[in-house]
């Protein structure tokens, strides 16, 4: 139903040239509206999930808050729209959301045929398998003939078919639109394995009736750079989204945290002074306030802080930094120079 609605919305938005004016300058539209509309997950612990009071938390959620801070100086000026995997890109194309920060994988065709642009990945992930311990399977290569639960309309669905074909194995896909159905079907025994991004599997394992009965297989069968996405055709807006992400990474590299950012204002380092808006006009050149990066770090935190808060050891997920460590520490998170 939602899909049909969004499709209708594409048509409706197209009618009367509404689309043209609304999309031409997303920043102006967002400013006039007074809040950012952020496409979010329907409920993925650690990335985007509302609690029982309706407060959203997660890595993707904090990214949107950082964008809201950059524009409005206020992390609460975001409206989160939960979208399932199947509807997310249509919703973005139709202009229902300004930015999609919803653990979506950056791929070539999503940019070439869906007309989207992906900013820098905020989480480097890969596809894995969750199985029951009592199956006595220690490798994905032993899954020949298995039934596998997977969410519809994801890169995961395609990788799964490719992986089994490449290894000359058979499988039976059991496909659902909603992740909750996928999890429920796996948990009740319909499938031998559940496949998704491994960060997601770590979160879903906790939702099972007995989390300890399930184990992640060691294989990572794909590259899943999860990145925020925007529509093509508004380069100014794309710049903001992309550099908000880089600013959070750069802050961690500088060692600027939400705790010490005020002390850092006294720093003599010209890079840091430029970053915090004391020198030059990085923020203004993006169409933002010059202290945008200062405010992001102050009100949301740097990348490392946000990672630890949502995914790290203090959370039930206990995910390691791994690929998401800074490049200076052997990871892939690297911000181009902010100058």
């Amino acid at each position, binding site marked *: 139903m939602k899909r049909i609605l969004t499709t209708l919305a594409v048509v409706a938005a197209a009618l*009367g040239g509404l689309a043209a004016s609304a999309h031409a300058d997303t920043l102006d539209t967002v400013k006039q509206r007074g809040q950012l509309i952020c496409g979010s997950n329907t409920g993925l612990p650690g990335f985007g999930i509302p609690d029982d009071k309706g407060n959203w938390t997660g890595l993707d959620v904090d990214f949107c808050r950082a964008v809201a801070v950059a524009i409005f100086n206020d992390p609460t000026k975001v409206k989160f729209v939960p979208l399932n995997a199947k509807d997310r890109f249509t919703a973005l194309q139709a202009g229902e959301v300004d930015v999609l920060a919803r653990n979506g994988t950056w791929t070539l065709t999503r940019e070439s*045929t869906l007309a989207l642009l992906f900013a820098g990945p905020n989480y480097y992930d890969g596809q894995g398998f969750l199985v029951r311990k009592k199956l006595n399977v220690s490798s994905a290569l032993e899954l020949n003939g298995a039934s596998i639960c997977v969410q519809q309309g994801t890169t995961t669905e395609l990788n799964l078919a490719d992986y089994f074909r490449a290894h000359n194995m058979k499988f039976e896909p059991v496909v659902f639109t909603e992740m909750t159905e996928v999890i429920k079907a796996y948990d009740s025994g319909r499938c031998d394995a559940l496949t998704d991004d491994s960060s997601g599997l770590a979160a879903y394992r906790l939702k099972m009736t007995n989390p300890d009965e399930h184990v992640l297989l060691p294989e990572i069968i794909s590259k899943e750079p999860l990145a925020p996405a925007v529509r093509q055709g508004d380069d100014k807006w794309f710049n903001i989204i992309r550099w908000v992400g880089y600013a959070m990474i750069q802050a961690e590299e500088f060692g600027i945290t939400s705790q010490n950012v005020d002390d850092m204002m006294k720093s003599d380092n010209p890079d840091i002074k430029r970053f915090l808006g004391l020198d030059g006009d990085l923020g203004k050149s993006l169409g933002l306030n010059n202290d945008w990066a200062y405010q992001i770090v102050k009100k949301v935190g740097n990348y490392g802080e946000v990672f630890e808060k949502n995914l790290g050891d203090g959370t039930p997920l206990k995910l390691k930094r791994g690929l998401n460590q800074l490049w200076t520490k052997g990871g892939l998170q690297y911000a181009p120079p902010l100058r």
Partner: protein
Amino acid sequence: MSQHISDERPRVSPLNNPRVRSYAFQAAVILALGFVGYEIVENTRQHMAEHNMVGGFDFLSRRAGFKISQALIAYSEDSSYGRAYVTGLLNTLLVAGLGIPLATMLGFMVGIARLSKNYVVSQLATIYVEAIRNTPLLLQLFFWYFAIINFLPNPRQSHAILGAFFTQRGLFLPAPVYGDGANFVGAALLIAIGATVAFRLWAGKRQRETGAQYPKNVVTLALLVVLPGLAYFAAGQPISLDYPQLKGFNLAGGMTILPELLALLAGLVIYTGSYIAEIVRAGILAIPKGQTEASFALGLRPQTAMKLVIIPQALRVIIPPLISQFLNLTKNSTLAVAIGYPDLTSVWAGTALNQTGQALETILMTMLTYLAVSLLTSMVMNWYNSRKRLVER
């Protein structure tokens, strides 16, 4: 004289001429609709061009790359999107093709049971109709699906009943394997069916003319069993059964009926059956009681009276609303997407839409397909209805 009158006809301005007016209004409406249609198409095209979105149907021949759990035709990840579409469509037609006859049978049984003089039977039928008709179909589907999965054993722990396994992964049945000479048995079966039809036509005609009855059912059964049976043994038992066996994670061999299909069929048949039951009951009640009394007076037993007098007349009331129930069943099968059955909506307006991103094209194709299927169904049923209509004299 007539010439004279026509000369006298008062001249009316074209503005007030009802015919001119009506044409003008109709033309205006068509123009307006055409303009709106043109605007929708043109603006969509413009919007897509502005946003570098790719349109068109070229993707139909591209490699699909995803797997479908149930395919009635040969389909693999290497097949094209076009073939994925056909696979999804056939899965939808399978559900409709199985669901419509089953729901009709169930509906007729329950509808007649509701009118039964037996208190328990009629009350049970009433409870069924009221409980099923008044709860949402989607919830019923969830119920059936998760009930099947949760209450049936894992394939590894399941036991065979007559060579069949009922498991969480579906129903595994022995599949026939055709050897040399199986064609011979098939031909014998076709001949037997032909002979049966011919016999029944002849017996019916004879009964109408002379009133003499033949034991039709016994002869039919004999023809259908004996002839292919003889052929089977004469050809040296060419058909064997392939039994499913536990292999790795799952049962292998035989035929598999997915639990998704079982749950969807159960849900749709039981739901639609409750509506059909009410239609059947209404149809029967619409026949005046005098018809029943007259049949009894002629010496017909209640069952025969129902079959020969009441139902044929009731059909005229039943068929038109029945058509819309058939259409509903087909359209409701789109809820398959919620329980993971790969129907047209799930495969095409779900996976294919998302993997290609061509929402307009895929949704349009899906809607036109359902429209075509529905129109075809009602065409067939309307033809049947026109045959059953009361011939007025």
